[in-house]
């Protein structure tokens, strides 16, 4: 995690250039201090020549239009709006004049990834400083034109204002002759505006991407057409790894109108093994030909693996106290276990879960003038661009990924694996190719959220004082599969672990003895490519942590909120650090205290109804968003069916940059939490997921929409992230509510009616 952050361009020390270019004003970070040393001339000259390829962050033209370039993927979070508002607020811009543009891959944009709820967190300071530098320069130039002193000027609504005099940004830009370079040190001097003087941040606004999404004009990857392109559809082999094509019989496919043959893909990047793509002059033709073609394979070694095999391996590993890598090792859990008078052991499991983005994965690829152009929506271009390059045998600088709106990300498009078969097919065919996965192809190629097994052990002394908790979490690891360079060492230095898959287990409760083991499940790893799915690790570690906390509270006969509060003392490592986690566990205690009254905790409910509490601190300790959720459920004791009446959520993410966007993200993420708790779960069957479409896979729909009561703690702390954290506490809150309603403790996700019935006290 740390490494990913430090690699990021926003954190490097770079100069900032502002200059008149053509008829507009360009403001850009220089790529590095060293690059500047070899370039002579002022800011304008450098910017005009683009001689060192500056990262242009934003520009103002003579009409006063402000264009902000966005290097983040738009997948529903309105990220461009949030980032542009940070810049525009510092500039003092009229929001009506701001436009955004999502850019393609170019080294100048730096490392490109959109995930982890990082976007606002990571860009807040550099974009604030860039905006402040722009304001300074506009004021200096404006003051000269107005004949006043810069210190007497402010900016507002794209005007430089001094008393009763004012001049618009447009007029300042028209006047030209602006020239200024800020050193990295000078730039660092700018502090983000004080909350009281903000004009846009934390104020209500409409997202810039929304109108196009109501009239059919928003362009997604699947909407791309290339001149002379051929449509393709993949035939997904029986195993994710190790399949080999033995023979292809396309005699029946030949009767499909427009059928253009097939390609057996040879992939030097090893992303796809045993793949055939089927070609036609229409997509429906490719779909039909794909259904008609007969392929014989040598199967990979996981052809017979079932979900239970993976779960069983996880259970064995989680039980073995020597397995895995230590991520937390506070105190001495072994002696706590030895000295314990009483103990409790619970095992929590989660099933395989599909991303099921509404837009099936797809990519259109064209080789032109020695460049491989890939067109698609993607979240982590910098991870898969080199993979595509390797697959097609070109250097990284010869591959460009053109970005479009994503018809859902949720972590699926952090993996860019779907670009590879498109690129290989286009290369083999020598023509542009648009490869679209059918829904069934998409789910069978999904990098699912791995099934997981977590064993929790708690120990008490003779005075019934809680001594500590041991937590072993076994699953397939996305980061091991796709980005092993981002895996840190465990605290015992005995191996590396996937930080994204264990986050959440390193929670903010103060325990005397606490051990967390991150355990890779090798059978999961072999059978499929584990994926990052919205809320990633905390999305399932939170299930065990917060369900178990509830079990402990009940065992100690304490109110679950009081019990949690007693451990949220913000001592030691849980004190937090300024600026991002300032206050530490105290802020968690606050949301927990607030939700007690908000949800009217403790109210008398009708029979078979109950409330449950859970908290979250996602996505990471380095970037905590403090959250609490109360679920109000009703259980049908005949069928075991659970109905969620209401979800109450309180989140503290520091400054809320784009309030309505924050609410939308939290509505979505909390409902995702509900969907994963009750409605979503598949299973591996003979090496593949068994549910491939909506006839058997059933995410939440409007008929199961509960009442939502969501609020944000109003403060001015450093903004963290909101895309995912709302999800985390929902499933355990529901399970804890089920227990309070009917006394059934469920430990498997999704929570199926049969499991509720089976767990009912007799």
């Amino acid at each position: 995690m740390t490494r990913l952050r430090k690699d990021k361009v926003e954190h490097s020390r770079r100069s900032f250039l502002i200059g008149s270019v053509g008829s507009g004003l360009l403001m850009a970070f220089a790529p590095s201090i060293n690059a500047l040393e070899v370039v002579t001339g002022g800011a304008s000259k450098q910017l005009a020549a683009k001689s060192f390829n500056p990262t242009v962050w934003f520009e103002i033209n003579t009409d006063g239009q402000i264009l902000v370039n966005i290097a983040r993927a738009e997948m529903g979070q309105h990220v461009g709006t949030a980032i542009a508002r940070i810049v525009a607020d510092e500039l003092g811009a009229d929001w009506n004049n701001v436009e955004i543009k999502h850019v393609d891959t170019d080294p100048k944009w730096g490392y490109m990834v959109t995930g982890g709820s990082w976007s606002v967190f990571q860009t807040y300071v550099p974009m604030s400083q860039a905006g402040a530098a722009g304001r300074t320069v506009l004021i200096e130039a404006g003051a000269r034109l107005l004949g006043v002193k810069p210190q007497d000027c402010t900016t507002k609504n794209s005007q430089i204002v001094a008393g009763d005099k004012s001049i618009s940004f447009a007029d300042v830009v028209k006047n030209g002759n602006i020239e200024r370079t800020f050193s990295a040190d000078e730039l660092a001097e700018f502090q983000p505006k004080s909350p009281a003087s903000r004009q846009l941040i934390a104020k209500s606004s409409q997202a810039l991407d929304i109108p196009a999404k109501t009239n059919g004009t928003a362009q997604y990857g699947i909407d791309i057409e290339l001149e002379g392109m051929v449509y393709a559809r993949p035939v997904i082999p029986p195993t994710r790894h190790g399949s080999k094509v033995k023979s292809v019989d396309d005699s029946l496919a030949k009767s499909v109108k427009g059928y253009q043959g097939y390609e057996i893909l040879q992939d030097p990047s090893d992303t796809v093994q045993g793949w055939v793509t089927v070609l036609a002059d229409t997509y429906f033709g490719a779909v039909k030909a794909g259904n008609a073609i007969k392929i014989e394979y040598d199967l990979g070694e996981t052809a017979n693996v079932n979900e239970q095999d993976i779960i069983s391996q996880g259970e064995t590993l989680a039980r073995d106290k020597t397995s895995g890598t230590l991520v937390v090792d506070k105190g001495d859990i072994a002696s706590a276990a030895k000295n314990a008078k009483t103990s409790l052991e619970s095992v929590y499991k989660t099933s395989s879960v599909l991303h099921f983005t509404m837009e099936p994965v797809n990519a259109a690829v064209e080789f032109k003038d020695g460049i491989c152009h890939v067109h698609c929506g993607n979240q982590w271009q910098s991870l898969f661009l080199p993979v595509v390059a390797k697959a097609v045998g070109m250097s990284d600088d010869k591959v460009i990924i053109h970005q479009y709106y994503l018809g859902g990300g949720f972590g699926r498009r952090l993996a860019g694996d779907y670009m590879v078969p498109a690129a290989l097919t286009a290369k083999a065919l020598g023509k542009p190719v648009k490869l679209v996965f059918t829904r069934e192809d998409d789910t069978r190629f999904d990098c699912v959220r791995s099934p997981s097994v977590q064993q929790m052990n708690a120990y008490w002394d003779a005075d019934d004082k809680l001594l500590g908790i041991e937590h072993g979490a076994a699953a397939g690891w996305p980061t091991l599969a796709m980005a092993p360079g981002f895996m840190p060492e465990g605290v015992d230095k005995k191996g590396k672990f996937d930080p994204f898959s264990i986050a959440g287990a390193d929670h903010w409760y103060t325990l005397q003895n606490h051990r967390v083991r991150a355990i890779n499940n090798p059978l999961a790893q072999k059978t499929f490519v584990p994926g990052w799915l919205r809320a990633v690790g905390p999305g399932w570690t939170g299930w065990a942590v917060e369900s178990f906390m509830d079990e402990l509270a009940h065992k100690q006969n304490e109110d679950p909120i009081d019990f949690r509060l007693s451990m949220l003392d913000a001592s030691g490592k849980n004190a937090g650090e300024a600026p991002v986690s300032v206050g530490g566990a105290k802020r968690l205690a606050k949301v927990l205290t607030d939700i007690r009254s908000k949800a009217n905790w403790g109210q008398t409910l009708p029979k078979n109804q109950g409330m449950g509490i859970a908290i979250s601190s996602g996505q990471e300790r380095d970037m905590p968003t403090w959250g609490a959720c109360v679920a109000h459920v009703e259980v049908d004791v005949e069928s075991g069916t659970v109905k969620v009446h209401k979800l109450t959520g309180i989140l503290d993410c520091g400054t809320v940059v784009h309030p309505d966007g924050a609410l939308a993200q939290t509505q979505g993420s909390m409902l995702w939490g509900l969907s994963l708790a009750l409605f979503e779960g598949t299973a591996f069957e003979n090496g593949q997921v068994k549910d491939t479409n909506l006839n058997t896979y059933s995410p939440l729909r409007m008929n199961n929409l509960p009442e939502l009561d969501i609020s944000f703690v109003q403060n001015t702390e450093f903004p963290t992230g909101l895309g995912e954290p709302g999800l985390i506490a929902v499933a355990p809150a529901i399970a804890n509510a089920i227990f309070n309603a009917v006394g059934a403790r469920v430990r498997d996700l999704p929570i199926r009616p049969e499991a509720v019935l089976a767990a009912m006290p007799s």
Partner: protein
Amino acid sequence: MIEFSLNGKKIKSDAEADTPLLWVIRDEFGLKGTKFGCGIAMCGACTVHFNGSPVRSCSLPISAIANAEIRTIEGLENQHPLQKAWVEHQVPQCGYCQSGQIMQAAGLLATNADPSEEEIEAYMSGNLCRCMTYARIKEAIQDVAAQSDSVVQIYNPKREVQGVS
């Protein structure tokens, strides 16, 4: 050869008779606002109006639409009150399903001016939104329903202009 009307314009397609309308709309006539989601009529991203009623174009072969009037999201021409409400309520997130959601909701309001909450839920539950924007979809529909006590007729602006009923 199939003839039908697409957003008020008479057109002909030579596509194979079993080709789903979705691909004809998208790839032959270039109207990309109608989306491919599941291919089995269970997500609603491909919803269009067939003689005024919402249908799933991914599972409707063009042989079944001879002489029919087909309207897509583009055919609402940004004039439908639901489109305005969708912006006001900031409904879309990723936006991929929203053409289908709007077409489905327009179908509802065209026949039921003031649907109850339960009627909205029943009518809209065939349309999946993976971003889970359901609360806002419902609010936007209720908002439009509250604005008028007559059914929302303007799902077909061309029809009014041409005086065809």
